[in-house]
């Protein structure tokens, strides 16, 4: 997906190393349920 966006000209794409699992393993906070579902990223 990151490659696709990069190909579309969006240059400041930063894949999260290790994904959600990497974040979780470090004990960083998580929220349960719906995130800001189907909202515009700029909002």
């Amino acid at each position, binding site marked *: *997906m*990151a*490659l*696709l*966006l*990069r*190909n*579309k000209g*969006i*240059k*400041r*794409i*930063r*894949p*999260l*190393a*290790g*994904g*959600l*699992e*990497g*974040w*979780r393993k*470090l004990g*960083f*906070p*998580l*929220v*349960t*349920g*719906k*995130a*800001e*579902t*189907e*909202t*515009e*990223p*700029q909002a």
Partner: protein
Amino acid sequence: MNETLSFLMRHGYTVLFVWVFAEQIGLPLPAVPILIAAGALAGGGHINLFMAAGVAIFAALLSDGVWYELGRRRGVKVLQFLCRISLEPDSCVRRTENAFTRHGAKSLLVAKFIPGFSTAAPPLAGVFQMRATRFLFWDALGSLLWAGGFIGLGFVFSSQLDAVTGRALSLGSWLFGILFGALAAYIAWKYIHRQRLMRQLRIARITPEELKQKIDASEEVVVVDLRHSMDFEADPETIPGAHRMEASELEEALHLIPRDRDVVLYCT
């Protein structure tokens, strides 16, 4: 080349079985020309039409069965492995999951006509724990459509194919060289292009620690949770403030993505 043709005539069923099985198991061998050739051979009376179709369907079902069972036992890792070795690994898993979510078992009916999806669909049926009888039914129908369609095409146009084969034989090894060279160049170009982009993305990758610091410092950063809805249902936890989107929605909303700040993505 004449020796090759006579070899095909002598061992038509075996070649057909091995070739179709190899293609369906994931080797980069196009089976369609062989199916059409088998149809043409049947049209010329060298092999039996129904026997050829039966052999091709059996070979396809056998390899699909192997992938289905692997999908059942090993889960989504099998699909990830298959997509990693495909020519379009970046969209392969997402495309396959989306097709299966939309059409369910019926997607097996057309899977063999779609490059990439052909090998990925059977393990996905296993991943989704589809009943074996249901899988066999739809996969057999799909195999019949696919193998029967192309063998039938070769059968109907067998006389025209004779003329094409004659012309190809007159061009001899040059034709083979040109076709092989074009295919090799295409695969090499895709590989080099992908490696270059992957290198750029490896550099741009953000660590969880760095992201946490940015969020804590209230820096302008957009976090997007791109997990498939099935994955999200299985694990509904997400990073605070993350925008959740289906990958297909993101493609449609490209104009909404800010260009002046970092966009952090995760899809696993």
